[in-house]
């Protein structure tokens, strides 16, 4: 009983907490903070049951912890949830990050604490639900459900230009996803009036040209969320104006919903169309990598810099997915986690500085390492992870992506990989410049003379992430294993499609899978 419903418990525990919080008086902010922390920690503890209960062996069921009950039977909509390895990793990322976010907001939020905490809890349920959903309408409901709490988080607790940022965020994402709704309804009608994801994947049979339209409708919705160049313009505004907690969740989890959408929906549902648009998407991914990195070089605002670095890093994830090799896909999935951990940590640390000085301008700092050695240490570790230094998680992900792209059977694959690699170099440049200008050199601003170092609470916020960065760098295997069956399934799906295409057109060269000789040690 508990085992079968564990996933639903994890998904809905936060919203139950939010309902409970509604009955506590808003004049007692301490109670709300404590309640939210307890609920999010309990959610994390429950999700550990998923982590240890997941069977990642090749013969295991694709979706585990499945629950399938009718919701609106007349319309073919059901409450169907379940996790594959990739969804499991992202669920773990979400449940682990949320308590940290709550703790980080402990003193930063003074006004309307009750509403803030309720928004965070509702947001957590919506995020978890969108990873767990196995019904397209259920997925869409959670996907849109994320928008409202995030909209409120930015709009109420954001900084000066928050209204512009939050409306832009909402409109961009909403406009992009309504077309996906049309595509979902179409797909459901074509697959025999059901919105069940496994059934649709099995039964969907539409012409190639229709597939292309459907792929575009899904891909645009996901590309805005990722965000891919040129759909990224909402991101710097939203990140800059959001409160620290909002930025961390936005970067840590929400952006992953886009890449997860490609991995779970756009690629497996419309493989032919995906192959057709692959060069375009990969090109946009590479442009995003380089463009994001170049934009970072000229930023004066720390948060904006980290936001643009997200554009660059998420470009890596997309490049890895588009490689359609085992290495690239695995690296893409791994980089999703890395980006969640390291960019989340970067935003947290920027938030820690912001709480002390109430400015995000790089020029206001300089040489503060002497005053705050521990903040500086943590920042340097996170920076090294972000630029992919060996021994940190970032290295594993970027190496897998770039080698996977190099070996991809994609036209000009080497060029994609080589240009992508310049993003790594530029990444080192802008991140190290940031560290140098903020932390090292002479103390240039007298206001920084009396900065306090990490408080006990902040230690609790920063330590888990730093530990994760190092652990995922040295022992990636436990984090790679769950993703493997999903990656293999996606590849074999593409192999089948390739085979079918080759049967129709014998002269066609293979485009998926790894070019021999494979460098990575997979059998």
């Amino acid at each position, binding site marked *: 009983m508990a085992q079968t419903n564990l996933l639903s418990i994890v998904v809905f525990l936060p919203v139950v907490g939010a309902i409970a919080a509604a009955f506590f008086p*808003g004049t007692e902010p301490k109670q709300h903070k404590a309640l939210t922390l307890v609920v999010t920690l309990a959610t994390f503890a429950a999700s550990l049951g998923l982590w240890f209960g997941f069977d990642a062996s090749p013969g295991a069921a694709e979706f585990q912890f499945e629950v399938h009950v009718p*919701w*609106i*039977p*007349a*319309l073919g909509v059901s409450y169907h949830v379940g996790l594959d390895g990739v969804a499991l990793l992202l669920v773990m990322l979400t449940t682990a990050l949320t308590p940290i976010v709550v703790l980080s907001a402990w003193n930063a939020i003074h006004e309307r604490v009750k*509403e803030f905490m309720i928004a965070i809890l509702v947001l957590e349920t919506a995020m978890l639900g969108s990873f767990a959903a196995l019904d397209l*309408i259920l997925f*869409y*409901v959670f996907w*849109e*459900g994320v*928008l*409202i709490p995030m*909209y*409120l988080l930015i*709009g*109420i607790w954001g900084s000066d230009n*928050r*209204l512009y940022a*939050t*409306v832009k965020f*909402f*409109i961009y994402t*909403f*406009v992009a996803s*309504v*077309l996906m*709704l*049309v595509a979902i*309804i*179409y797909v*459901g*009608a074509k697959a025999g009036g059901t919105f069940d994801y496994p059934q649709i994947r099995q039964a969907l049979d539409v012409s190639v040209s229709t597939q292309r339209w459907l792929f575009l409708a899904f891909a645009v919705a996901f590309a805005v969320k990722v965000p891919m160049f040129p759909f990224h313009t909402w991101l710097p505004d939203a990140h800059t104006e959001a409160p620290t907690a909002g930025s961390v969740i936005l970067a840590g989890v929400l952006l992953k919903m886009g890449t997860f959408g490609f991995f779970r929906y756009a690629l497996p549902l419309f493989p032919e169309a995906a192959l057709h648009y692959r060069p375009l998407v990969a090109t946009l991914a590479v442009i995003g990598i380089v463009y994001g990195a170049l934009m970072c070089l000229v930023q004066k605002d720390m948060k904006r810099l980290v936001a643009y670095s997200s554009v660059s890093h998420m470009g890596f994830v997309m490049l890895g997915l588009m490689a359609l090799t085992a290495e690239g896909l695995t690296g893409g999935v791994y980089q999703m986690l890395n980006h969640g951990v390291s960019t989340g940590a970067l935003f947290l640390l920027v938030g820690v500085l912001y709480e002390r000085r109430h400015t995000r301008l790089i020029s206001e700092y300089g040489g503060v390492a002497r005053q705050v050695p521990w903040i500086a240490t943590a920042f340097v570790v996170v920076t090294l992870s972000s630029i992919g230094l060996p021994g940190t998680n970032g290295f594993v992900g970027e190496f897998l992506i770039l080698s996977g792209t190099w070996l991809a059977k994609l036209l000009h694959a080497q060029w994609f990989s080589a240009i992508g690699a310049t993003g790594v170099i530029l990444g080192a440049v802008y991140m190290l410049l940031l560290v140098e200008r903020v932390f090292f050199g002479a103390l240039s601003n007298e206001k920084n003379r009396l900065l306090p170092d990490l408080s006990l609470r902040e230690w609790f916020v920063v330590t888990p992430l730093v530990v994760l960065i190092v652990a995922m760098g040295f022992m990636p295997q436990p984090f790679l294993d769950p993703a493997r069956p999903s990656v293999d399934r996606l590849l074999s799906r593409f192999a089948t499609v390739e085979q079918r295409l080759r049967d129709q057109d014998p002269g066609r060269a293979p485009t998926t899978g790894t070019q021999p000789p494979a460098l990575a040690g997979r059998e």
Partner: protein
Amino acid sequence: MTGLSPIDVVAMLPVAVLVAGALVLLMSEVFLTSGRRGFMAGLTVATALLAALAALLAPAPGRVFAGQAVVDGFSVFVTVTVCGGLALTALIGAPWLHARDAERGEFYALALFAASGMSLLASAADLLVAFIAIEVMSLSTYALAAYMRRGRKPAEAAFKYFLLGAFSSALLLYGTALIYGVTGSTLFADFARGSGSLFVIGVGLVGAGLAFKIAAVPFQMWTPDVYEGAPTPVTAFMAAGVKTAAFAVLVRVALAVWGGAAEGSVRFGAVVAVLAVLTMLFGNLLAVPQRSVKRMLAYSSIAHAGYLLVGVVSAGAAGARESALSSVLFYLAAYTATVIGAFAVVGAVERTEVRSEPADTWDLSRLAGLSRRRPGLAFVMTVFMLSLAGIPPTAGFVGKFLIFKAAINAQAYGLAIVGVLTSALGAYYYLRVVVYMYMRAPEAGEEGVLTLGPALSVALAASAVAVVILGIGPGPITDLARAASMLGQ
């Protein structure tokens, strides 16, 4: 036609209950000895519930009055929706009128008369019955729109509404005459016999007359002024009830035209599709710049008529009729709950002095900082706005989902795409209300505490709960709507 049979009388029970309630309320005003009128809203709610119960429990015999009316699942669904809207209107009307010292029995009696017309309209299967029902409904709403005589805007609104409404009735009647001339009958069922250009003109005129009532482009000009000028509870009732009843008869007329092999019926479908697109675009585009919340909701009601028209067009396609009709019914129920709730909030925050009419009576700034003054009120308004914008998990989302699903079943992909894109546009102006309530500080002098009476609180809670329940567990209502979509033609 021979005398009334008992079946016919029983079938009209809901209409009779509503009329009886109206008469009782009228008489009560005559014999009233004290100034206490608190019972009137309660009596109206009870009558509405009784009429809904009568509609649900009485047998649905199908054709009655020699085929001039049809009592089927469809009419029952519409009647129950109208009665629900009436009950909510009475609940929000009582405190609104009380605060303006204008509570009279006539208000409730007129609303009940209007509802009886709406209920009859849902059953109409004959152009003359439809005309009579429309007139009963319209004359009552003209009077309701003019209920607050004082002030320039109400007078203008009522006059405009009356004039244009009379014009539309004339069109309807003229169309009826032409159709009768061609087919020798005014029954919807005999449309199949019609042919020739006179018949086409007749159907076009009838369609234009109905388009006035649902506020579809190009017959929407009156809507913003009338909605803004009419007393807020009346506006709520017009947006919900009149639209619901008019769509009910429009569906029957449209299906009768499409059902017959009348020449040009395909072209009628194309015309309605074009009107649907224009209505969605016009309503949403013009709602964007509005600063008056009431006016914004008026334009939004035009936009929603456009979405409903998409459902009507989809019903014309073979194989999509059932899903299209049930989507229209669900949408009407969802819209009724949502829009009455939204107008109730508008009515709660607007200024009470009617005579002065400052320009900002319904300005967005009246809502600024509402989340601090009345968190509950701001929360339910957010629910209504999300529902109007079609964002899950609300009734509005399920309604739009059903409509667009029907359109895709009918292979009207263009309509579905225009629909979702314009509803994305809608999200902008609905969310602006949320921005004002949650993200802006209240204006100076507006920090005072708003008091909501128990009646208004009940109405708001009921509509918000309905919106959320229809959004999370729409199953039972979609099943009912599906069952009701089998028209007893």
